[in-house]
């Protein structure tokens, strides 16, 4: 058997993972692609015996059947293996990470460069060292280099544009400045006490990462959470989604100078996150989720507060969005800017709202639902723009419009979930078992950025041997780099905000 099928949030014994050859891996990968499976992750787990061995785990998602296909390959540090990237471009960055972490060289990889300059990589390098940028021939073109320290209050990263005049021919993004060694910190001490660390992986997606983390711990311990806790978790996740999307629409309006949009969306965001503050004591949903359930209940007062906020914001956001998306000046800036077409998006594995805006039907809440999303499925509306077209053109407009849709959907879903609260009175937390020994587990959540994966491998005593995090940004940064081609340099901030990617979620 060359692969194992799992559900989301499932754990299986590590030794049950099939061990295939690299040749077979290539064939399986292509087979999965042809069968419509989506590449999700490719990462290495260092093994004790033999010394220097690395088990590379490959994960694919079947969005139709709702399963995950997992397989693994044996490799060694420093070995050269055939690259999967030429046939599966979505694995390009994963193979670069394997090279950086374990020295496994993917032969014929078209773009082998450092990923995040980790402190414990195979060949330690100072940041920026050894990064050979793609360059343009001809002395008349120039390069625009931005970062690491950017003009706004934003995380650091380096962008290298190849321009002739105002037109961008190519963008290359080099990250790694935010590397804090987060994955390693998950391995020190009991895994169940890492909620705050999980929330800090990418602080603007605290609930998403906390949900994935908690689900992983519960899967490893084979624990279940009360249904009420599941509902409250979903409410927290959707509040985070709505709040951030409102902030993104505000930022997009700011970049085109449409100030009514900037201020009014920002104010609505404040409304939502202050509601989050009332719910759990943090505007970012920190401290809400822990393994076993949630740490704050929703009483009648909070329920009324959340319900009225959601009602108000839903109306106001709908009204404002209708006004914004009808404005010809706004559309002139948004449409046909930063386009990623469907084929490219599928090839690079774009996820989240950016992927959906490019026409890819990827949403873990629908395809691999867990907890509240499986008990009470989320129904999405597909709003149409003024021309009666669904927004899947892959440009800034589509990514903005998808956010508008998702705000409406999330707020409606929260209202539905609040209605369910009375029916689920089984408490907000259950005791969580210790992680079982020798297991591997995968926990995927649809954060507001997209597919957020936490995976772990436990050892003989149940200790964490490997903790692996894949933020949605790991796929989507490349989408941004491709989107900016052929656009003007001055449209870059607009494209950047339309993706809104995580630097620290990428750098870990």
């Amino acid at each position, binding site marked *: 058997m060359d692969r194992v099928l799992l559900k989301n949030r499932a754990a299986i014994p590590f030794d049950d993972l099939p061990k295939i050859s690299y040749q077979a891996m290539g064939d399986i990968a292509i087979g999965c692609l042809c069968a419509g499976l989506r590449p999700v992750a490719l990462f290495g787990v260092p093994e004790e015996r033999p010394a220097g061995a690395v088990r590379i785990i490959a994960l694919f998602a079947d969005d139709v059947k709702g399963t995950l296909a997992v397989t693994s390959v044996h490799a060694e540090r420093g070995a050269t293996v055939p690259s999967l990237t030429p046939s599966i471009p979505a694995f390009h960055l994963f193979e670069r990470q394997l090279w950086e972490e374990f020295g496994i060289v993917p032969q014929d990889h078209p773009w082998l460069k450092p990923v995040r300059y980790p402190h414990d990589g195979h060949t330690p390098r100072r940041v920026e060292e050894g990064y050979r940028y793609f360059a343009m021939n001809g002395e008349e073109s120039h390069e625009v280099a931005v970062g*690491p320290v950017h003009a706004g*209050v934003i995380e650091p990263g380096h962008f290298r544009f190849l321009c002739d005049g105002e037109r961008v021919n190519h963008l290359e993004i080099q990250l790694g400045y935010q590397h804090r060694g987060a994955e390693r910190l998950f391995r020190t001490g009991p895994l169940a006490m890492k909620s705050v660390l999980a929330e800090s992986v990418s602080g603007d997606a605290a609930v998403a990462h906390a949900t994935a983390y908690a689900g992983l711990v519960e899967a490893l311990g084979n624990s279940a959470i009360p249904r009420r806790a599941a509902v409250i978790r979903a409410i927290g996740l959707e509040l985070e989604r709505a709040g951030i999307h409102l902030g993104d629409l505000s930022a997009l309006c700011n970049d085109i100078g449409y100030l009514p949009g900037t201020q009014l969306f920002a104010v609505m965001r404040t409304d939502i996150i202050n509601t989050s503050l009332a719910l759990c004591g943090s505007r970012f949903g920190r401290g809400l989720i822990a393994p076993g359930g949630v740490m704050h209940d929703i009483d009648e007062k909070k329920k009324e507060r959340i319900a009225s906020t959601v009602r108000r914001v839903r109306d106001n956001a709908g009204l404002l969005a209708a*006004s914004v998306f009808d404005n010809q000046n706004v559309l002139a800036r948004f449409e046909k800017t930063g386009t990623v077409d469907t084929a490219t998006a599928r090839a690079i594995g774009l996820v989240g709202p950016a992927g959906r805006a490019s026409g890819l039907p990827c949403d873990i809440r629908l395809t691999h639902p867990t907890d509240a999303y499986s008990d009470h499925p989320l129904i999405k509306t597909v709003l149409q723009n003024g021309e009666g077209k669904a927004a899947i053109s892959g440009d800034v407009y589509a990514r903005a419009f998808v956010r508008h849709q998702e705000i409406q959907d999330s707020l409606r879903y929260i209202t539905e979930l609040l209605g369910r609260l009375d029916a689920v009175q089984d408490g907000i937390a259950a005791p969580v078992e210790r992680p079982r020994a020798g297991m591997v587990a995968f926990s995927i959540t649809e954060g507001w950025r997209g597919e957020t994966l936490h995976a772990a491998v436990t050892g003989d005593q149940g200790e964490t041997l490997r903790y692996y995090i894949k933020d949605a940004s790991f796929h989507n940064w490349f989408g941004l780099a491709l989107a900016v081609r052929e656009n003007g340099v001055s449209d870059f901030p607009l494209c950047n905000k339309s993706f809104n990617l995580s630097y620290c979620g990428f750098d870990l």
Partner: protein
Amino acid sequence: MVFRLLKARWRHGSQAVPDPIAAQVDPMFRGFPDIAKEGTLSSETVALCPGAALSVNPVAIDLGKCHLCGACSRAANSPIRLSSRHHLGQTKRDALIVTAGTSFEQYHARAEKGRAEIRRLFGRSLRLRSVSAAGCSACEMELNATTNANFDMLRYGIDIVASPRHADAVIVTGPVSANMADALEDTWSATPSPKLLILMGACAISGGLFAASPALDRRFLSDHTPDIYIPGCPPHPLTVVNAILNYLGRGI
């Protein structure tokens, strides 16, 4: 279309917080820790703290390491209660340590003002340059929020600028990864004197829950003495605004 926009605007009314200095936050906010005078902390409780901020003899919380997660307050027999008082800024590192029995008023009184010349120069106009030195982006978002329509610290003459050349102060978020150490140093050198150094968030002040990670390089902070410490994870925008206003002599 214009009418829709006007309607949307009308519905929002005025969103500005009228007086950020006197404003209060939602009681759920996890702020200043009140530690009962006669209280003890068990070793399990101490181990709960993600930032290793708790000490036992005497019972104390180092707000420079504290992520205000509330785990210690939820432990059994815990003497710690997190109030919703949000004026947490200080000007000395050891002033951030809250021992048992310290009242909020006593704590707040420790916060000093900047020296007279600094207050004269920056009291009515202070420009901040933000450096995210491996921050998780929560502090960055709250720093951005300080200039929005709600908190609007620009009304006090405090604003965020794009270049360190235009700045009077460098505000650092994040635990300072090794990969950002050079850039932080360069930003500081590029800022003209006189300048202030402000640390925002537990990670910036002490490394927080990342303190033990070998991926950090915090030598910059041992070479330069910060002027303002703003604890929290992330600090509420009102905490940020009030810490700065206090330093400039304009707070409560």
